[in-house]
């Protein structure tokens, strides 16, 4: 990526040599100037500025998300939507029971023949829409390809005019074109569309083979057809999202890069905090100051060894194993793994204390934990492995499985909805600066 807007705004040209350093220095000065100006902002403008910053930043992601799809893919998208709908309809027509993969539609009873016929019709329709969508996507792909080539030519001309060096430009691996943000976005669009095309073809073939199996009324064939149809419907839904990016989507990676860099600067704050606290401990020789010395030693040795290992090409041969085997594998990962394994002990004492039949609630927790704990280990499984046939559902491993997939899953989902909506409300309050509390109420 050469620049955010390399071609239209010719100011943003990569530089090299002295000019680069001058500009970097100048931009640093501008940054500092900007910060100085900020210090002079009168206090009554401060709050609105913070609110505006919050609003604009939230807006970027919200709008990117809310705008459905680019102009060029609207038609293709609607075809795909129709195809998906018909696939689901076909799947349903040959499913005797919603959401249950078993059973079959018998053509002889209960309007079965009618249902199979309907499924065939729907599949044919889906096929039709899929081919229409493919046509449409192929058409816009050609257009985007042309755009891409044009943009590349422009970038090439640009490169020659400003004498950019090889290091400063990024080339795409396959066709040696210069890549900047715009060409990159176009290239991605072309390849996305190409991929969508081949995916459509794949799904279409699967659908047609499923259609051939539809008239076979055996349960296994029907189940196979159902699986194919449902997978194809999911596939089509995926294709729709893959071609639905809009004019803001391409700015997401650079935005997240900028964000990462700004975040990266904050590591200094954290380390500074650690170093001052431990520095004070040492300076004042507080009790346990030798621990702080150990902290400093570990921090410095680790950081120095890591940097040497990465960047010092002609380092003596002990540097690499010293860092990798002793500091990283030996010390750091052992400490992490052991700290993690402490949970094994704490889980015992916590269970012992908490699972008491004081109340219905803790008794219930205890019962569920008992069954699940026994249902996973061989000893527990062996306790009830004698149950066969009609009683096999009473086996501990089966009950354990049922608890985890039915009531547990449902309860987790019920909570997840609440947390999702709660988060949404919170996000909304933040975005519109409606949040209250000491931090947010303070005058600036």
């Amino acid at each position, binding site marked *: 990526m*050469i*620049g955010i807007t390399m071609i239209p705004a010719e100011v943003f040209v*990569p530089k090299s040599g002295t000019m*680069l350093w001058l500009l*970097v*220095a100048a*931009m640093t000065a501008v*940054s*500092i100037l900007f*910060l100085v100006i900020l210090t002079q902002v009168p206090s009554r403008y*401060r709050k609105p500025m913070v609110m505006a910053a*919050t*609003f604009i*930043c*939230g807006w970027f992601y919200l709008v990117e998300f809310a705008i459905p799809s680019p102009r060029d893919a609207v038609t293709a998208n609607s075809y795909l939507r129709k195809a998906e709908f018909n696939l689901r309809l076909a799947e349903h027509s040959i499913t005797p*029971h919603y*959401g249950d993969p*078993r059973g079959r539609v018998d053509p002889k009873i209960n309007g079965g023949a009618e249902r199979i016929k309907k499924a065939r019709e729907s599949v044919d329709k889906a096929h039709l829409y899929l081919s229409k969508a493919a046509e449409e996507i192929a058409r816009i792909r050609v257009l985007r390809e042309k755009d891409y080539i044009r943009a590349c030519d422009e970038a090439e001309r640009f490169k020659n005019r400003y004498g950019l060096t090889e290091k400063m430009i*990024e080339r795409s691996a396959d066709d040696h074109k210069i890549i900047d943000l715009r060409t990159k976005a176009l290239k991605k669009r072309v390849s996305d569309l190409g991929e969508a095309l081949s995916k459509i073809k794949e799904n279409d073939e699967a659908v047609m083979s499923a259609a051939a199996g539809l008239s076979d009324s055996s349960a296994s064939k029907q189940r196979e057809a159902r699986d194919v149809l449902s997978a194809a419907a999911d596939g089509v839904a995926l294709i729709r999202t893959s071609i639905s990016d809009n004019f803001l989507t391409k700015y997401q990676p650079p935005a997240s890069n*900028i964000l990462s*860099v700004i975040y*990266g*600067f904050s590591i*200094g704050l954290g380390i500074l905090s650690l170093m001052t606290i431990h520095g004070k401990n040492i300076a004042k020789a507080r009790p346990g100051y030798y*621990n702080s010395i*150990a902290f400093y*030693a*570990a*921090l410095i*040795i*680790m950081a120095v060894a*890591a*940097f040497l290992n*990465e960047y010092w090409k002609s380092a003596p041969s*002990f540097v690499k*194993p010293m860092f990798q085997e*002793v500091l990283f594998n*030996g*010390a750091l*990962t*052992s400490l992490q*793994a052991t700290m993690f394994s*402490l*949970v*094994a002990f704490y*889980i015992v004492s916590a269970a012992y204390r908490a699972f008491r039949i004081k109340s219905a609630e803790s008794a219930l*927790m205890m*019962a*569920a934990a008992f069954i*699940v*704990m026994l249902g996973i280990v061989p000893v527990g499984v062996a306790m009830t492995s004698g149950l066969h046939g009609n009683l096999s559902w009473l086996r501990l491993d089966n009950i354990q499985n049922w608890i985890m997939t*039915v009531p547990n899953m*449902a*309860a987790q989902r*019920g909570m997840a909805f609440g947390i999702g909506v709660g*988060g949404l409300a*919170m*996000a*909304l309050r933040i*975005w519109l600066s409606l949040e209250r509390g000491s931090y947010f109420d303070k005058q600036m």
Partner: protein
Amino acid sequence: MDSSTVFIQIGAIVGAICTLAIFSVLFKENPYYRLFEHIFIGLAAGYGVFVTWRDVLYRLWWEPMINRGQWWWALAIAGGGMFYFIYSKKHQWISKLLFGALFGLGAGTFFQGFANTYFPMISASFKSVVPPMDVPLTDAIVASANDLVFVLVLITVMAYFFFSIDHKAKAMRGTASLGRWFLMFAFGAMFGSTVMARMSLFIGRVDFLVSDVPRMFWPYAVGAAILIGLIYFFFVEKKRRLNQDAEPKTG
């Protein structure tokens, strides 16, 4: 024995010392643990600095700016610099400007994630509670009973989380408390299902100590442990007890 094997063995011994140090906290917080806690934080922080530089600042900032001539990246200093205004009493608000922007981004990404995460969960909850007709009767009953339980649990649990309805209200009392019971049952199940993974972690550490650490380490370790224990008891603990007797307890 080549030199890399030696380093691997040194690493294993260092690992054993660290492992024992952390395990010692199970008995009591002690100077040995405290020392390794500080070393741990130091190592992690040191490695964190390196990773932040290599994966973020170098790759995304320094490299494009210096090697590819994208001089405008220097402007990021303005953004990063805003953090450091928290140390100034007078100009604190500048950091708030940055935080405001970051809050906004956080909120925006949540909006984006919301639909992707929760819509599929909604549609996956559409369970048909009607027994299927073309399968054996027992299977049909089981299937529909499962779906019924699922929907029931889901609804009662969601009902429990309504904040603006008093749980003392008649219609809510039963539903919400049923929901709470289901929740507790599910929590018990989650607890039970985690035990095995955590136990295997401990087994992993034991296995590490036994099969990866060189055997010759152990006599020294036991000797050192006894020595440290004796020193600790005679010097530190005795002194502490003496002090305790001498001075009245403070704070």
